């Protein structure tokens, strides 16, 4: 990876009290890469993504995103990030449109786009995730899968350069999963950099070009994506249960 990497992580460590979750993790991510972040439950995937998302501070090491050092310059980085977690980060008592509008306001979109363009973007976003007919329904009435689809629309509303996806397939049925597959392909074609924490190894092998495997809080492997069988064998060898 060249030094012009978009994301540079060096000797990253994170501890919660005496419990060390990440130890000496280092890797670089180039612009436009699509990376699968793999590891057993509790291996530190979510913690790593939360640090990259500026939601958590590292205990040691350094993280640089787009030339900005975390956590010192977190505010500058946030506008470049789109984040999907296993929770949808939505308000139950607001409608789908109201939820998106809230996030649009926090990302300054009304001023950047103007009223008409913003309205078009909000409507397009809902249509793209198949929620055009539920625009004014409260999120409380949505199934878990529909909430996750709305969360995907929320994450890319401000056109971020980097997407951090933590178990993005949570709650999605077969149609929803296929939709997310196509969205990820679309986002990559648009040049976005994507890091996705995934449990489904065959899906990771099909989607991504590179795999980072965490084991025992360390980066156990950083490899070009092999075929599904080899990935499963490598994963099992590196992350014994």
């Amino acid at each position, binding site marked *: 990876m060249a030094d012009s990497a978009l994301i540079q992580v060096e000797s990253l460590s994170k501890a919660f009290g005496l419990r060390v979750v990440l130890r000496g993790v280092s890797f670089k991510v180039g612009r436009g890469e699509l990376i699968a972040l793999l590891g057993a439950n509790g291996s530190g995937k979510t913690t790593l993504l*939360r640090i990259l*998302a*500026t*939601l*958590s*501070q590292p205990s040691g090491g350094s993280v640089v995103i787009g030339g900005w050092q975390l*956590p010192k310059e977190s*505010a*500058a980085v*946030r*506008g*470049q*990030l789109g*984040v999907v*977690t296993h*929770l*949808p*980060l*939505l*308000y*139950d*008592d*607001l409608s789908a449109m*109201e939820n998106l509008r*809230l*996030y649009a*306001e*926090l*990302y*300054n979109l009304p*001023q*950047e786009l103007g009223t008409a363009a913003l309205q078009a973007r909000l409507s397009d976003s809902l249509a793209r995730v198949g929620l055009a007919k539920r625009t004014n329904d*409260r999120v409380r009435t949505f199934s878990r899968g529909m909430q996750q689809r709305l969360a995907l629309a*929320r994450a890319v509303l*401000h056109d971020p350069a980097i997407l951090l996806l933590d178990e993005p397939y949570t709650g999605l049925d077969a149609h929803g999963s296929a939709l997310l597959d196509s969205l990820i392909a679309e986002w990559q074609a648009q040049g976005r950099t994507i890091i996705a924490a995934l449990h489904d190894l065959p899906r990771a092998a099909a989607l991504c070009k590179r795999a980072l495997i965490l084991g025992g809080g360390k980066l156990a492997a950083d490899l070009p994506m092999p075929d599904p069988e080899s990935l499963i064998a490598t994963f099992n060898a590196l992350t014994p249960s």
Partner: protein
Amino acid sequence: MRRTSFSRAVIAVARKDLRAEFRSRLLISAMGLFALLTTMIFYYTLESRPEARRAVLPAALWVTVTFAGTLGIGRSLAAEHDRGTLDGLMLSPVPRSALYFGKLAVAWLFTLIVALVVTLALSIVFNTNLLRLDWVLIAALGTLGFAAIGTLLGSMAVYARSRETTLPILVLPVALPIITAAVNAAHGVLDNQPFEEWIAYPLLLASVDVVFLALAYLLFDFVLEE
């Protein structure tokens, strides 16, 4: 990307809280019910001591408002934490203190509403007119300071395992100067004391409000760090 202005972010967060509460009515109904029940308990326990009622009225109001406010602020922040929406707000490129002031604005409004409802209830059950401008001004100053410190410490308490007990333990000692000053000022109003004899208390309230707001502005970023 140009960042959203501080005031726009505050308004967006406050409007979101108001809209959600207008639909669910979870917070205001819980706070209001709690406050009215507490008022009734004060009324029945003081029924046989009419001479003590007047002396107890200001304390009854502020004890009720303090506990109802703690309940409401705790619930509001706990809901943000449990649904992950606090993370959603923190991911946005706005100053985190803007998130604080948005949450504070609604916490203050709800606590002030509770204070006014309890004032009305106390006026009715104790047959004393408390809905006066000076009383309302004291309520506004007192609830602002309480909401300021409650929102700040509540944002810390949501990460605690036993947050329902952690929040009152954190808030009540720190809010003591506010409660004491508000009760003393309310006594001055209730006893029709000359203005200059009790004006020090509203001034103290205003000063404490400024200190708490400034502290929250400076500290809120660190409060939310994981």
